[in-house]
Structure formats: structure tokens, C-alpha cells
């Protein structure tokens, strides 16, 4: 069916996924105790405000209407890509989350490039000397890095590269709306932490696939036609071996886009994660929805990109109709 068939099917599927996401996110947030109004009124106001006044304010904001009506109205808005305004302060949601989203996409984007490259480098190195000491140390090393919680590796990296050696900033002191170049300047340690945590799984998958590929008949034919081991690994084994790793990479990167909250807390990175925490704490459903939908579409795009790369790497899927 090739790329176009896949694109069509994937597009239809992703619309359904986004619909499901917004439904689950809506009812999930609606279930939480309290609502946008009580979340925003300061403590001393909450004590003195009368129930009637509270009810009047809720009606004013329209958050007292039945959930089904509110959800339908929300879907109507989303259809025209209008992400609406925050419930109480009436700010445009997009204006509020655009920069944090951009920052998180930069972080996720660079990690999406760096992590697989690191995994490929490590896996190829360990496979070129099978059963050797390097293979064992790499496997053990990546597992150890994965086994340490992110806030440990993050803080240890800060102490090493910011406190002891003045290479990177210990605290990212940029405003959320800082220009992208500044964000790039401070992104090294967060990415290193993410890669240390996420590399083990991708490395293991790639290494296993490489070993399996090197045992295949076509690698043996390449070897027996005089190709050097390096060439057999890189040109013949690697492309096919990347396929299982790619879906893991896509999953790893998509979990970063709106999930990198621990990293944002440790480094003070102005990402979308903290914005999500804020939106949940103020029960601001439009913001939560917007962040969830952007996150979900980024995830869907990530998986789609991975599928396209798999298509590029494995022609058997791409051009099946000729056989």
C-alpha cells in the first residue's frame, strides 16, 4: 500500500485519537475536586465570599452549565482551531502556552536527534567486538544510567558541570519568552539527563536487532563477498536493525513533549510541563485541553515520523504491490 496508503490511514486514526484524548482529558479534569473559580480566588476571599455570589460568578463564567454542553461547545471551538480563553482571567490560551510549547519542542526535537545517534554509536561499537569487555560495560553502563532516577542524574550533572566546572548554568535564568538561541545555549544538561535516562531501552533494542541482523544470510553473503566487518555492520545490518528502535525512540520522545516535568523542575527549564501543572492546579480546562491536544498531536506526529522512517529503511513495506 506504500506511503500514501499509510498516510491516509494514519490521518484518519490520528483524528480519532485526538477526539478520544480531548474526551478523556475533559471528563478527567471535570472529575477533579473544585473548579476554575474556587481555584483562582485567594484564600481570604474564599472565606468571605457568599455562596450566592459564588454561584453568580460561576454562571458568569459559564462553568455551571452541564458538562456535556460545555464539552460540545469546546469541540465546536477546537474544530476551528480556536483554543479559547482561560476560564477566569480570559487570556488567550495560545498566547499563554506558545513559548513554553516552543521550548519543550526544542528540547524534545534535539533529544529526538541526539538519543538515537547516541544509541547507534554505542550499539555499533559494542557489536563490532561481540562478547568483548566493551559490550558488557556499555550494556551495564546504560542500564545503570537508566536505573538512576532523573532527578539524581540531573542534579549530579549540575554539580559536576555547573558547580565544580563552570561549563553550564546551574539554574536556567531565562524568561519563558527568551529567544530560541538563548534556550539552545542552556539546553545541554537537560538533554544529557534525558539521554542518560532514555538511552538504555533504545540501545538494548538496537543492539539485539543488530546481533540478529549480523547473523542473517544477507550479512553472511556480504561478509563472504569480501566486505569488511565495519561495512557489513553499517551498510547491511544497521538500516534494518533501526526499525524496532525507531518506535521506541518515538515513544521516548513523545513522553518528553508534555511529560518532561521532572527535568523542568530540576533545571528550571521553561517548558510546557510546568504550564500543564499550573493549568491543572487552576482547573483551567481550556489550557489543560490545549496542552493535552498539542501534546497528543506531537505524539501522533512523532509516531507517524517514525513510521515514515521505517518505510524509508525497509522497502519491503513501501513497495509491496510489485511482487
Amino acid at each position, binding site marked *: *500500500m506504500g506511503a500514501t*496508503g499509510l498516510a*491516509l*490511514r494514519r490521518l*484518519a486514526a490520528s483524528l480519532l485519537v485526538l477526539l478520544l484524548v480531548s474526551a478523556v482529558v475533559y471528563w478527567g479534569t471535570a472529575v477533579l475536586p473544585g473548579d476554575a473559580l474556587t481555584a483562582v480566588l485567594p484564600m481570604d476571599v474564599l472565606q468571605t465570599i457568599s455562596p450566592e455570589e459564588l454561584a453568580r460568578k460561576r454562571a458568569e463564567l459559564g462553568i455551571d452549565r452541564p458538562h456535556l454542553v460545555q464539552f460540545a461547545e469546546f469541540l465546536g471551538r477546537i474544530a476551528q482551531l480556536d483554543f479559547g480563553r482561560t476560564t477566569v482571567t480570559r487570556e488567550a490560551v495560545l498566547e499563554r502556552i506558545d513559548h513554553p510549547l516552543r521550548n519543550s519542542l526544542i528540547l524534545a526535537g534535539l533529544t529526538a536527534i541526539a538519543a538515537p545517534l547516541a544509541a547507534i554509536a554505542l550499539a555499533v561499537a559494542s557489536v563490532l567486538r*561481540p562478547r568483548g569487555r566493551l559490550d558488557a560495560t556499555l550494556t551495564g553502563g546504560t542500564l545503570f544510567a537508566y536505573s538512576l532516577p532523573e532527578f539524581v542524574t540531573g542534579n549530579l550533572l549540575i554539580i559536576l558541570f555547573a558547580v565544580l566546572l563552570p561549563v553550564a548554568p546551574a539554574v536556567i535564568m531565562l524568561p519563558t519568552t527568551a529567544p530560541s538561541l538563548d534556550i539552545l545555549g542552556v539546553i545541554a544538561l537537560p538533554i544529557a539527563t534525558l539521554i542518560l535516562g532514555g538511552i538504555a531501552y533504545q540501545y538494548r533494542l538496537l543492539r539485539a536487532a543488530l546481533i540478529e541482523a549480523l*547473523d*542473517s*544470510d*544477507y*550479512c*553472511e*553473503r*556480504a*561478509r*563472504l*563477498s*569480501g*566486505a*569488511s566487518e565495519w561495512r557489513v555492520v553499517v*551498510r*547491511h545490518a544497521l*538500516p*534494518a536493525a533501526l526499525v524496532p528502535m525507531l518506535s521506541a525512540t518515538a515513544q521516548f520522545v513523545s513522553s518528553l513533549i508534555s511529560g518532561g516535568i521532572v527535568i523542568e523542575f530540576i533545571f528550571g527549564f521553561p517548558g510546557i510541563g510546568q504550564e500543564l501543572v499550573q493549568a491543572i492546579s487552576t482547573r483551567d480546562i481550556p489550557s489543560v485541553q490545549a496542552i493535552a491536544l498539542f501534546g497528543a498531536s506531537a505524539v501522533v506526529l512523532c509516531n507517524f515520523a517514525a513510521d515514515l522512517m521505517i518505510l524509508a*529503511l*525497509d*522497502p*519491503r513495506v513501501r*513497495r*509491496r504491490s*510489485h*511482487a
Partner: protein
Amino acid sequence: MTLLRVEGLVVAYRDPAGGERRAVDGVSFTLARGGALGIVGESGCGKSTLARALLAHGRPGSRFTAGQVLLDGTDILAATPAERTRLRGRRVALVPQNPLQALTPHLTIGAQLQEVLARHRGLRGTALRTAMLDLLAAMQIADPATLAARYPHEASGGQRQRVVIAAAVAGEPDLLVLDEPTTALDKSTEAQVLALVQAQQARTGCALVYVSHDLRTIAATCQEILVMHGGRVVERGTADEVLTSPREPYTRNLVGALPQLAPRPARQAPPLPLLEAQGLGFAYTRPRALPFLPRRPGPAALDAIGFTLAPGRTLGVVGESGSGKSTLGGLVCGLLAGHAGALRFDNAALGGAARHRPLALRRRVQMIFQDPAASLNPRHRVLDLVARAFTAYHALPAATARTRAEALLAGIGIGAELLRRMPGELSGGQQQRVAIARAFAAEPELVVCDEITSALDVTIQAQVLDVMRNMQRDRGVAYLFISHDLAVVSEMADDILVLHHGRIRALGPAAEVLGAPADAYTRALVAAFSSRRAAAPTPVPIPA
């Protein structure tokens, strides 16, 4: 002048249990420049390991513990890795077994050929490309440019085999080692490929080493033959000596097991047919892009098929891959549904998926599959597999089902000590016997056998065919015996049906079809399978 001398070669594998298993145990032989040596043996006899040892290559976990492989006097086993890499493809080359797995799936055919040419002929740019296209042309590829741009999975079996040979001969090696060159091919393409290899030898004067389990093909192409068993050479001689007057008991058993292209003695056919087909047709539906689009039918897999099969008799169905023979089997036993035309069993319409057929009908029609390992659930014990059939078809209580199953298995050669084993722990032959027992547990009247021996070695194949003949003799069951191997079919079939691209090319009693078939395609097929004894079968190209 000797090109290759192998002296007392031993290749040992580290056994998982810690011991050492010798795959090649002291093999010695010589091969003159431009000679052709055949090495024959069943799976596990060490022939593939020996073939790779000729390129100083051992699979992971194996070591050359003794002996030498002298190529033009120098021992390539002692060569440094760099020297080994240089000689592979230039001095000695290997044509691997099944071409689809042996070609890198994500590189075009042209790219893979150019890689070898660039390394051994130092060509680059357009010179490299033209050399590649000439090489493909030399392999009788009709349109080299189109094939070069294609990926391996987009080429036919014959084309892939030719590409693999092209890759091997690209470096103009002095010694060409062929590992099971024709196993994956239909008879029609096999002859062409063998002709190509001999043309290459004639042009470059290189020596050939054929390694195969198929004694008939080796006998057709090599002057001298080595028969291997358990890592040792058990017999050595010319093709005629080995085929007509084998000295060793193992070789005698091997030659005896070769299916002979001779019709079974004619038997009186009972009047009432058990299974009939008139104008039977079938087409698979094309895969859909989106789940909601209408399903469109694909090309016809079977067209206007008519035949009858009486109780207790065997109808052999012969055809190459893609001829539709498996589709026919699937329709009869209910794996496939939605055929055109009439299909009747015991004078009643037979159709629909097995799930929707009444229990009685499901019991009376059974099927045995090609790959024994895949047809038995790996997590069920042997006894339970067969007992399950008794409980499913005869609603017997578990205990009686087990005793009936034990008796049936014993009768078919599966001893008590194997009953509690998982299928994974049995040999191929044993697994197929269990599958046969499971089929007969239902006490069927018709058994559809789809390539039931193609995955087995020749000696095991002979045993399984004996089992099937005995079961038919004892229980009077009818067989729809499907295979690509005309010789195997001729050993079983009362009548033979030859299928090609979904259409019948010949149908009639075995003697008639094998004797003087009217249809050209059938005539060529019969010639290709004719026995060694009659005359050295020259490779006869079969019209497409």
C-alpha cells in the same frame, strides 16, 4: 593441476551443554582447476559447514580445530583476517542457499552488485554501472536496468538466484562454491540456473563445488560425488557409481529413498465419487487502503477446475508455486470460502468456512500441513495434541481419548517415551507423524495433504510416504495429495492433475499423465523429473 586440497579438516561447535560437537570430522579431498565436485548429504551432515570452510568462514561459536584448506598451495585457514577478506569473492566465492534471505532487503539489486564489483575490480562511476549491467545481461536477465533498480523482494525467485550467482562470479573467482543452488527453485527455473553456472565455468575455467541434499541434481551436474553423513565422507565416486552401485549401506538407503517417477499399479476405481468439482473457480480479495472502502476481488487463483476423487483413492495435484494448488486444498477443507462453480462431497454441496460446517462434515475431511513444527502447538504435549482430536470429534471422555491416542501414536511409530514431550523436542519426521496421527484420530474419509514431505529429508520423506500408504491401505481413506515434486506425487497418486496458473494442464490416470502427456508443459515437467537411471537428464528449459 590441483586447485584445492582439503587435508583432515575438523570444524567443531561449542555445544550449549559445554561439550564439543564436530560438524566436520576429518574430511579430505582434492579438486582440480576447472573440475566439478558434488557434496551430498542430509540436513545436519556438515555439508554447509564444509562449504563455508572453503572460504575460511565459520559460523559464530565454531572453530577450525584441525586440518588445512590449501588453495593453490596456501592454507587459507591460517590467513590473517585481512588476507581472508581479500581472497573472499576474488579467489573463492560462495553462492548462498536461498536468494531472498541472502540479498540485503534495503539495498537495490544494482547497488549490491556494484559493491562487489567496486571492491574486486576497482571500478567507479559509469564504468562500474555498465560492468554491473553487463554482468546481469550475462546472467540472461531480460532487462538489467529495471532489475538493477528493484529491491530483492520485488524480483522473482529465478531472477534472485541469478543475481546471487552474478554477485559470486563478479570477482571472477577461481573456485565457485554453490550451497543448495536449486532447493528454493521450481523445476522450470532450476535447469536454466544450472546451465548458467556451467556456462560460467566454461568461460572462466573456474572449479565448482556443488553442495546439496538433492542427489538427482548433483548427479546431473558433477563428475565426482562425495556422500557425507555425520560430518564424515562415507562414499566417494563418479555420479554413475554412486547412483547405480552404491557401496556403503547409508548411500544405498539414500538412493533407495529417492522417489521414482513411476506410476502406482492401477487399481479398480469404485463407481461412486467421494469428492467432485465442476467449473470450480476462486479469487482472493485485494487488501484495502482504508478499513471502510469496498473489497475488490484480485486475479483468479483457480479457474474452471473439474475432477472426481473416489473413496480410498489418491488424486495427486502437481503445480509450481503460484499454480493455485494450495488454494484448491484450502477450499476443500474449509480454510477458504466463497468459491465459484460446484464442489460436492459425498453427493452434498461442500463449501463455507470450516467453522460454519457441521461437526460430522468437519470430522470426515481432515488436513495435514507442510511445516510440521508450525502445525503443532509448541506448548502442548504430543499426547494431548492427538487426544484433543478424539475429544473434539468423538466427544470421548479425556481418559479414553488419551488411551485411543496412545494406541494410534504407537501404531504410527511414536513410542511411549515421546508422549509427554513438547513438539519442539521431536525431529521433523516425528512431528509430521504426530500431525498424521492427529488427522486420523478423526477417522476421516478424505485427507488433504498440502506438501506434507517438502520440508523433510529424502530418507524421512520416504518413511512418511510409507506411513501414508499403510494408513490408506488399512483405513480406505481418500487423499488429495498436493506437491510441487512430480516424483513424490507419482509414488502416491492413482490419478494426477497438473495445475499451472490456476488452470488444469493435464488430468488422468498416473500412467497416462506420466507416459505420453499431450500437453507440452506436462511433457517438459515429466522430463525434468525423469529418473537418473534412464539417462543423464540434460537440463531441459521449460516454457514459461
